[in-house]
């Protein structure tokens, strides 16, 4: 049975690399960001530098996240067809049908898994939204960073947002979107495992190796 399946190189190195950088960044940024918003560790002596280090880690991870996003967006234009930005847009009748089918499959209405080597339309559209949320986090983060850093670069990266939103509102949405991204991450891992168990196409391991296995049903080999 396993021999019937064709091995396909779906996720190129930059895709996998940025994926894992993003995982590390989301974990680090969420933890440190949560501490910055609500400092739950208390220093016992004035010689400690807890908030200092936490903020340092937050800012370094923020730069890593920004660069990872830049690499991924670049790769969406030069990478293979599974990494292409066109994958993310569900605006065709075929993709909309695929999206509806995927919803039905996850809701146990349909038994037909959304077979795809790349992302199926629902997953791809979700990633588009997540990318937009991440871009909001980056912009709002740099908006807060820009208030005490002078220079045009900070205005370009996020300072412009302070003209449209008040600082406490930027803080609030930066904080709320963190929860949305964490909820996505939880769902993402669960559904990846679920799809893998149904489609038996090596989906879960593909983000390590880059290879997926065709079952012969995929339209996008």
């Amino acid at each position: 049975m396993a021999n019937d399946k064709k091995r396909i190189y779906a996720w190129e190195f930059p895709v996998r690399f940025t994926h894992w950088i993003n995982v590390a960044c989301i974990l680090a940024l969420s933890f440190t960001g949560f501490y910055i918003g609500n400092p739950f560790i208390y220093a016992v002596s004035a010689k400690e530098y807890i908030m200092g280090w936490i903020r340092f880690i937050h800012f370094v991870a923020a730069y890593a996240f920004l660069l990872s996003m830049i690499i991924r967006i670049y790769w969406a234009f030069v990478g293979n067809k599974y990494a292409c930005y066109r994958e993310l847009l569900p605006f065709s009748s075929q993709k909309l049908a695929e999206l509806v089918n995927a919803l039905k499959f996850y809701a146990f209405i349909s038994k037909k898994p959304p077979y795809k080597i790349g992302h199926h339309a629902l997953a791809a559209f979700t990633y588009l939204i997540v990318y937009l949320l991440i871009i909001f986090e980056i912009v709002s983060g740099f908006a807060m960073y820009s208030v005490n850093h002078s220079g045009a670069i900070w205005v370009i990266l996020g300072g412009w947002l302070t003209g449209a939103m008040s600082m406490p509102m930027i803080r609030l949405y930066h904080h709320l979107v963190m929860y949305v991204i964490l909820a996505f991450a939880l769902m993402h891992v669960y559904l990846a495992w679920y799809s893998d168990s149904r489609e038996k196409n090596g989906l879960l391991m593909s983000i390590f190796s880059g290879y997926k296995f065709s079952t012969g049903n995929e339209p996008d080999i």
Partner: protein
Amino acid sequence: MKFSSDDALYEAAESMEALGNNGLSRRDFMKFCSAMAALLALPASFVPKIAEALSGKKPYLVWLAFQDCAGDTEAFLRATNPTAANIVLDVLAVEYHETIMAAAGKQAEKSLMDVVKNHKGEYFVVVEGSIPMKDDGIYCCIGGKSSVDIAREVCGNALATIAVGTCAAYGGIPAALPNPTGAVSVKEAVPNATVINLPGCPVNAENITACIVHYLTFGALPNVDKFGRPYFAYGKRIHDNCERRAHFDAGQFVRQWGDEGHRQGWCLYEMGCKGPESFHNCPTIKYNEGTSWPVQAGHGCIGCSEPNFWDTMSPFYKRLPNVPGFGIESTADKIGAGLAAATAAGILVHGIGRAVSSKKEEEK
């Protein structure tokens, strides 16, 4: 070089003999000039220039009070370094100030109009309080004229308008939601006037003096940020100059009013201090002759010098604002926890659904 500037300094001081007769010693005057140079972040070599500028012709000044609590007048009259108050009163010809002027009624209004007519384009206006625009501005009238009409006439013909306090600068508390009187700032009411904003609740009188001194010395108003505030006073973030900053970086926070940390003077960040998003020189200039300022007194900053602070900075004792569209008790973290629980529940339900459906399949 140093010599010549010192000479100029003494010369200027000499020319202040007249002032000296009014109860201001030369020493006090030079101290004041040095303090102003320091506040404007100028090198010591500018002290003689300031002294010279202040010895010149007396500029006229009128002080208008609209929708406010007269807190800026209070700050101006008593909080400041007494020398500065003397200087302002001696160096400037204050022609109109409702609270402190001897004249009353028509007589008082006449002196205001005299300045506007006889010194068009060469007098300063200080405005405190917001200007109501709703229903033709009837919510604030003085001598039968609405404040918007007065502001248009007086500020429109002035050399420069200094909007003191947050109400005059941005509408302040009268403009807070739901803004029943349609209160606006001076710049919004008189868009063609030259306005410099000195927000704060109240304004720091040292900053008013410094603005005028800057104008007299350089013939121009100081550079301003995007909110119309001079950089010398509003260029630095409170959080970055705060005396409690070290406690922030260390991770030492006040968790409750009156707890051990509060008594030790730790950081008020968790008590909702808005220092990280507010720009003002409170930590360095302080209030009441440099005696204290809110954070030193143990209360967090409420961001009173930021536009719309009453709406955007509240709740003052919480880190994050309330989430719009939810009950006022909902905080972001509660929503986040709810979202996490909903996600976990969704996964659980989905897992059960999956187990059930696969069992059915097996049965088939």
